[in-house]
């Protein structure tokens, strides 16, 4: 554990360096290089802990609140999530280093800040990573909450680093409010967990799990508290605003990694601290996850801003992870641990997968922003010609997140479906039927995600440039490309050899559900993914990839050899538009691509309406399509709540101007009410 402490201390030290040496030219290199190294060390330590399977290690640090101290402990689950944080940290540091340099150079050239950085990122970047790591290591409620709040605040400060952007202040304010609300829920949840015993250590909580009623309340509060951080619908409203507002490498960390820390909080409390689960906990989690998954991807389909689209897609993926967690809980409650292990493996695999491809895609968004200066899909296009390497890496990311074989997104989904197919083993009728519906929701979300990323990739990288900036774009620097290449390579590797990583985090699964996903298989073929009970279900990404590659190459060679290999270039028929630029305008835009889906789903869900402004014949103005839609979360939850709060505030105002007698009456009434309550509760 010493290695871990050294790395964490290094992160804090780097923050100091970031403040102290902020004027010097090498500070970016030092901080990002140091952060990458520290995260690499954390990752190495986590892999060692997972491979070594030497159980949990714990430590007590004599700092913080007297008599309590800071209890730290790393078991399989913590190590697994630490690995996710470390991976995100390494790639984000690498990318961020190149990204900031590119933006500084651009600023030097033009003399103005072009929508990129303007506030300090450097000191908070390592602190944010350290905060997330501490949440994962905390072993008492107190240090957990403090680290959680530390993580929230550092990420909030990172969001604020772009405060010159006109949208940022609002996004940051909303984020702060939701973060406070979430922490409040967590605070209450841990208060209930600790109970009257007053022992804040997780070990003590584990020994004395709360009563059924309190446990139910804890589940609810945890889902609200951790869910608001993870982006659970309808508490997601801050996420599509705040995540994109930060610099791209920080967005990648917030979307790819911080949401996973929230998932960790759920896993820790629901699977570990609360003891034996009850079936409806999982049912509730699955229902919330299903709504989140489908709504998240529908939100993503409505967005025209690249980074906002990615943030919304995070909501969808969190939904999928929650569904898998819910399934695992349900199966754990019905004492079928192997299937619970299967579902939990699906959840954890999706955690890794999503952190990889979402980081990758946010880096791609950052690269696009660097190269073109815009995040608006309707101003992009044709980047595959101008940013060839980025285009290849982005294609891998888009295919992986669309759950296409042989990449990693599909493996997670495949495992999830294998768990879903075991639904008949459950005793509750409502769960059996409910899981079928949830399965349909997962499938719907996955298919819509594919549409969403065809839209993203097709509009941004393919076709013709829709603006002059997109036409002038150039490839980004090597550091940024390397930052993208690492997660892309891992996406492919995890897709073709998933068994290794599932084996790697088996200790984490075993710690939570007391079984491994491959337990009832006496013989496990090497690279074949063939989990549990169901007979003969297996998947092999390596063979699929090999076959596709081999057959494609053979086909190319055969056709070029025996049929024809002649090519002629010509101008594509642009429906009567001549020349280059009008043809670019006649392309499908992001809004028009989403139109069929908007028409099928949006009318009901978002109350979406298309308005077409068609000029008279003879008029040369272009026709305009305006899409308006309302977010149901705002329309039905937050706006009414805001109104109610305002109303309450207006009326509470009157309380300031009462006579002393009235104040005394109020206090007296409050006292009587409390006493009555005590009397009632006691009886």
């Amino acid at each position, binding site marked *: 554990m010493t290695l871990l402490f050294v790395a964490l201390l290094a992160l804090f030290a780097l923050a100091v360096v970031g403040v102290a040496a902020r004027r010097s030219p090498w500070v970016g290199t030092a901080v990002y290089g140091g952060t990458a190294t520290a995260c690499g060390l954390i990752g190495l330590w986590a892999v060692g802990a997972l491979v070594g399977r030497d159980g949990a290690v714990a430590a007590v640090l004599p700092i913080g609140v007297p008599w309590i101290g800071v209890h730290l402990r790393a078991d399989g689950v913590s190590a697994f999530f630490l690995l996710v944080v470390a991976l995100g940290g390494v790639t984000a540091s690498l990318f961020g280093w190149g990204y900031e340099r590119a933006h500084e150079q651009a600023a030097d050239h033009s003399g103005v800040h072009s929508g990129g950085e303007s506030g300090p990122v450097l000191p908070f970047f390592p602190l944010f990573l350290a905060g997330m790591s501490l949440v994962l290591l905390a072993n008492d409620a107190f240090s957990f909450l403090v680290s959680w709040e530390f993580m929230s605040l550092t990420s909030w400060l990172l969001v604020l680093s772009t405060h010159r952007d006109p949208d940022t202040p609002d996004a940051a304010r909303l984020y702060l409010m939701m973060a406070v609300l979430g922490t409040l829920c967590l605070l209450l949840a841990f208060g209930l967990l600790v109970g009257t015993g007053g022992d804040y250590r997780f070990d003590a909580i584990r020994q004395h799990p709360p009563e059924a009623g309190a446990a139910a309340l804890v589940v609810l509060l945890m889902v609200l508290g951790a869910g608001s951080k993870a982006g659970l619908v309808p508490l997601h409203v801050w996420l599509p605003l705040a995540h994109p507002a930060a610099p791209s490498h920080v967005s990648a960390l917030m979307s790819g990694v911080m949401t996973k820390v929230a998932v960790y909080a759920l896993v820790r409390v629901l699977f570990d601290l609360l003891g034996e689960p009850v079936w409806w906990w999982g049912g509730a989690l699955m229902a919330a996850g299903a709504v989140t998954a489908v709504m998240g991807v529908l939100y993503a389909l409505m967005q025209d801003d690249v980074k906002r689209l990615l943030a919304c897609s995070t909501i969808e993926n969190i939904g999928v992870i929650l569904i898998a967690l819910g399934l695992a809980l349900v199966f754990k409650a019905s004492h079928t641990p192997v299937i619970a292990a299967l579902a939990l493996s699906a959840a954890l695999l999706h955690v890794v997968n999503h952190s990889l491809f979402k980081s990758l895609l946010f880096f791609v968004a950052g690269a696009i922003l660097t190269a073109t200066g815009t995040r608006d899909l309707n101003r992009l296009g044709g980047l595959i010609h101008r940013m060839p390497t980025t285009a290849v890496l982005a294609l891998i990311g888009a295919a992986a997140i669309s759950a296409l074989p042989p990449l990693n997104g599909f493996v997670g989904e495949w495992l999830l479906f294998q768990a879903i197919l075991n639904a008949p083993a459950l005793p509750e*009728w*409502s769960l059996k*039927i409910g899981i079928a*519906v949830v399965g349909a929701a997962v499938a719907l979300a996955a298919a819509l995600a594919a549409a969403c990323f065809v839209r993203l990739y097709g509009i941004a990288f393919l076709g013709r440039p829709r603006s002059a900036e997109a036409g002038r774009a150039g490839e980004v620097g090597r550091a940024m490309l390397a930052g993208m290449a690492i997660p892309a390579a891992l996406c492919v590797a995890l897709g073709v050899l998933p068994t290794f990583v599932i084996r790697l985090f088996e200790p984490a699964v075993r710690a939570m559900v007391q079984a491994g996903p491959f337990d009832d298989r006496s013989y496990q073929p090497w690279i074949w993914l063939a989990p549990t009970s169901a007979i003969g279900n297996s998947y092999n990404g390596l063979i699929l990839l090999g076959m596709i590659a081999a057959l494609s190459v053979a086909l190319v060679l055969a056709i070029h050899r025996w049929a024809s290999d002649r090519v002629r270039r010509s101008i594509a028929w642009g429906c009567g538009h001549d020349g280059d630029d009008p043809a670019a305008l006649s392309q499908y835009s992001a809004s028009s691509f989403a139109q069929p889906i908007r028409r*099928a789903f949006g*009318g*009901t869900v978002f109350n979406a309406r298309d308005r077409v402004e068609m000029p008279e014949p003879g008029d040369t103005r272009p026709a305009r399509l305006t899409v308006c839609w309302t977010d149901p979360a705002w329309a039905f939850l937050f706006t009414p709540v805001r109104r109610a709060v305002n109303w309450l505030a207006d009326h509470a105002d009157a309380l300031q101007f009462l006579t002393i007698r009235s104040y005394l009456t109020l206090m007296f009434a409050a006292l009587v009410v409390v006493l009555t309550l005590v009397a009632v509760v006691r009886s």
Partner: protein
Amino acid sequence: MIDIGYDAAHLLGALVLMTSFALLYQRRLFSLLNVFTIQALALSGAAAWQAYAHDEPHLYITALLTLTLKAIAIPVALHRIIQRLHIERTVEPALGIGLTMVAGVSLVTLSILLVLPVTENATALTREDLALSLSVVLLGLLMMISRRNAVSQVVGFMSIENGLILAAVGVAGMPLVVEMSIAFSVMVAFIIFGIFLFQIRERFETLDVRKIESFRGESD
């Protein structure tokens, strides 16, 4: 393992439910009537099969009644009404087709969830028939509230009644009297509906219930 008696009853019952969904999906009045005819045929088939398989001859009467009334008389009469009244031949949904279908599936799920736990001890056929018929009844109600045209509301009402007969067929031992009285009351209801349709049409020149609503006595 294969029990053809059960399997056939199972499929016929499901066919009745499927036609209920098809009723919700239709946009044209004539195809609505055709689907309704199919539903009646399936229902009478279910009754006849049950009569044959379980040797309950009185169910043949049910089958015959359903066949003559529901599959022949009522559709023919409704066809003539539509032609005589020159009703617009498209169904105007008050709720989008997609939403209606989603609501329909939720209703079926609800009825299955209701029926399954309380019939743990019953035979598979009984509980299935109960679940199916409850679904058909609920779908009929859904049809009545989600369609604006009076003719489709009549069809919805008839399909509710089909659901009741399906329950009567499936649950062994339902006396014939009950079915006779149901059939009779439906007949009466149908006649009343028919008269109403004519009357409404004469007065207001439309069968769109929306337009008639403003003529309610209490409002001005």
